[in-house]
């Protein structure tokens, strides 16, 4: 069996290449939603935060875990919501209506 850290490094490097491929295709018009949206994705740390609440840990660990859940949730909820709000503003061009308006 490979060391889990080595497997992690392999996954990280390959995912970075996927990231470069996918992100270079995002047009400059959407770079702000890209930043807020990718920010929401980095809120995946919430998984670590949720796990950290358990394991019969002491008070200090629980306080740290609580703070981690709060900050990660702000990131996830706020990030996806504000991205949705922004993308909702990008109006599809309707040439026919434009002329008559």
């Amino acid at each position, binding site marked *: 069996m490979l060391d889990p850290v080595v497997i*992690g490094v392999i*996954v*990280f490097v390959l995912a*970075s290449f*996927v*990231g*470069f491929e*996918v*992100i270079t295709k*995002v047009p*400059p*018009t*959407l770079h*702000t*939603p890209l*930043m*807020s*949206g*990718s*920010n*929401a*994705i*980095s*809120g*995946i*740390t*919430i*998984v*670590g935060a*949720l796990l*950290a*609440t*358990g394991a019969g*840990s*002491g008070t*200090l*660990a629980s306080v*740290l*875990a609580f703070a*981690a*859940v709060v*900050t*990660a*949730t*702000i*990131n*996830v*909820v*706020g*990030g*996806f919501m*504000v991205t*949705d709000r922004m*993308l*909702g*503003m990008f*109006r*599809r*061009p*309707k040439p026919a209506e434009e002329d008559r308006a």
Partner: protein
Amino acid sequence: MSVDVRALLYLVAAAAFIVGLKRLSSPRTARSGNLIGAAGMLLAVVVTLIDNDVSWAVIAGGIAVGAVLGAVLAIRVKMTEMPQLVAAFNGFGGAASALVAAAVFVTTGGDMAGDTILTVILSVLIGALTFTGSFVAFAKLQGIMSGAPITYPGQQIVNGLIGAAAVALAVWVQIAQADLGFWLVAAIALVLGVLLVIPIGGADMPVVIALLNSFSGLAAASTGFVINNSALIISGALVGASGLILTSLMCEAMNRSIWNVLFSAFGSADSSGGAGAAAGDKTARSTTPDDVAIALAYAQQVVVVPGYGLAVAQAQHALRELTKDLERRGVKVAFGIHPVAGRMPGHMNVLLAEADVPYDQLLDLDQANPLLSRTDVVLVVGANDVVNPSARDDASSPIYGMPILDVDLARTVVVIKRSLSPGFAGIDNPLFYRDGTVMLFADAKKAITDLVKAIETV
């Protein structure tokens, strides 16, 4: 749930993020892409909650508080304040990673395998640095702190020594599993985040936010190594790549290297070159709203070049009225948007989308420049350096080499500006004195409102 099933479901979540980002390649599919990403996140959370030893009370409380705060921020933020919000979100992401690492360290008492402790240290280091660095960027953008660079002699040496101290302590923690060492690393990382961002000027914040965006991804990935979860590693790598690409695009748009942005305190007192000296014998021609209205109304193709001054004057909506009037008259209208037109990558596009400009009219540098030589009238509103032909023609100019919008190739250029004063970089703009350029001296909002009125009478 078996470990294998769990791992596969996390993989589904990570795949949803990739599909979501892929759909950002067009404004048409972008919104559904964001929802797919959100669904992936929900799946990851549910998978984590099933059959795991977690504290429901802590989680319920934490999610309730975080969700309310996040939602309020997302709903209430003004589009002009988006850079601050993203900076703050980057900071929360970094904080979450550092806190998870700290919680893991406390729970195990530092008693863990060598490679695990290394990932915990990395996680707390990147996370804490991202947290404080982002909030300094937030404070600068929000105007809580002055945007001016804060510098002192030997700054980089001090930062270097502090960084070296962090590494030395990290090695100590690694070898001795020392409690004290761990907390010292965390404290140093917090301080270092502040020290690295304070010397960077307000105008360079777009680069800093993009870089911190990348860091928030790396922080998530490092947490993935701590808890041995591939969903975190994949997501973190995606975000890390995204932030890095945006950072390099912003640097290219300013014709500066990332090292120059981070360490040269651009925008401090030394902006001497070429300032007032050039203006002397040249004269700019001033014009009136009525004359501009006539030129616009009888043009075939008009290109508007907006700068951040447009947003400062809150003139986007008036501008949209103007372009709607022109379109009704059969004039073709487009917007030429320089990458650094706003306060973060793509910011100007969002501001114009909010003002109801259809996205097919928003052109980037590569799309706008070929159109400009076939354009009858260019309307420059609140932009300066990004239309300065010196960047292309004058090798002695401080901005030489910076990609610009070639508005001087258009037949007529109308510049709406309060006065002839140079931009933030203090560089004179020969565009203003060129034949075919006319100046409309006024506040952006007033000028555009006047133009709307004047067009009605044409």
